[in-house]
């Protein structure tokens, strides 16, 4: 569905993404794993054209629409969740007649409801849910989630992962970047482990069916520095 090949990016002569290649398959959840500074977020930003790539090819078919949830979502604090969704929906040129209904449904889906609470009173978990809701505006076929569980407490993480799993079951193709391996393990179909901009290992759901947990694979890969 989305193919990335030979993607590279340097900042001030330092390579932060180094010839990264992968393919996301329709209906799958693809995970980008790695420690801080591995180049996960930069890779995501290049796919979204938020950062200019130095080299490589990103192929996204013309009929594929993409929704994006940022790592640290910030929304205007004096607006309500509904107003935020209406704002982004209008920017997306979603017809006004269907927009309000769609925003209401999305807020219900992420468990926020049509409450009148202003964003400034939102918890971190509520902000992440709202970020996910705005990513789903216009019913995109691909969702790109940058650290959707960042800053959430245990319960918040469980709820967020359940939500992502629900979206996957609905047929969404998801690219997700996370530090929390146990979360990824529950929902992902395949992924890559990155270190210092390079892909060290590729894995699929089948690799996780054995005795090795994703955490073991991750630790072994990073310590061993195996490269594919």
């Amino acid at each position, binding site marked *: 569905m989305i193919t990335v090949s030979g993607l590279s990016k340097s900042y001030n002569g330092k390579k932060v993404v180094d010839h990264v290649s992968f393919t996301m398959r329709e209906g799958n959840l693809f995970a980008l794993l790695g420690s801080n500074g591995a180049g996960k977020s930069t890779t995501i930003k290049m796919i979204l054209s938020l950062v200019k790539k130095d080299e490589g090819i990103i192929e996204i078919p013309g009929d594929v629409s993409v929704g994006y949830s*940022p790592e640290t979502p910030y929304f205007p604090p*004096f607006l309500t969740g509904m107003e935020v969704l209406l704002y982004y929906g209008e920017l997306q040129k979603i017809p006004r007649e269907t927009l309000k209904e769609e925003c209401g449904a999305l807020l219900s889906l992420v468990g926020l409801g049509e409450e009148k609470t202003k964003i400034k009173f939102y918890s971190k978990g509520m902000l992440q849910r709202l970020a996910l809701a705005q990513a789903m505006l216009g019913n995109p076929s691909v969702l790109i989630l940058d650290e959707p569980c960042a800053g959430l407490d245990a319960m918040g993480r469980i709820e967020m992962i359940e939500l992502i799993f629900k979206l996957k079951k609905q047929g969404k193709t998801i690219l997700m970047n996370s530090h929390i391996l146990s979360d990824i393990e529950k929902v992902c179909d395949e992924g890559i482990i990155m270190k210092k901009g390079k892909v060290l290992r590729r894995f699929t759901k089948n690799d996780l069916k054995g005795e090795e947990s994703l955490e073991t694979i991750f630790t072994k890969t990073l310590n061993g520095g195996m490269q594919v």
Partner: protein
Amino acid sequence: MKSSAGIIMKTALKERMRRKELYIIAALAILLLFLCSSDVTSITMNGEAVTGFKNMFWVMHALVHFVGCVLAVVLSLHTIPKEYERKNSHLVWVRNIRQEAYHGGLALANVCASLWAAGILYAALAVYAVAKGHGEVLLPMIPAFLILSLSISFVSLFVSVMSIKFPVMAAGIFGAAVMVFGVFHGMMELFKNMLGGLGGKCMSFFLFLVPDLNGIQNAAYRFATGEGIKVHLVFVMLFALWMVSLGLFVFRKKEA
């Protein structure tokens, strides 16, 4: 279907209006106006106390204009840089919105918020006029405010455009410099004549570049008090506004 800039402006303005800061600043400015107009303080010009409604109204009008311009700088300086700092811009770019539409919408929201704050001050000035028994200025004050708003809009738009290209500190310095040169245009002209040499030439250059905001303020005052105005000043100001707005299309901002 609404334009992207219009949608961005509407939302940014709605957010602004709900914040308390705009009203606190305006309340403080009104308090300042009240203090200046009360018997507690006396305003002197050339060593003589300013008395009589017309003189006091002129002073207060100039004060409203000055405070309005200061508020325009304060309210417009951070809007665009903060959008980038908080990465709000990313959620806009992924929706294929062009930079000029994004910046244009935010700059328009700045202009509207600045005019709203100036409007509150102008309303306080109207209350002052009525309290002094000069209700006849109320009606002409409405178009007079439109004239004055050209000056406030210019300062707000200029600072917004500068904040696209330059860091906040530099944009603030440029904005304050333009405001001071514009608001005290007449005084600066005198200063330029006194200076001479290279300093005088530099002053001449700045005064040529910066529109006469004081002239606009005077025009608004004259309109409010039923005197004639120099229309060419209004056209010069409209031209200056158009020139500055070009910056929205020319200047590009890099992601933080």
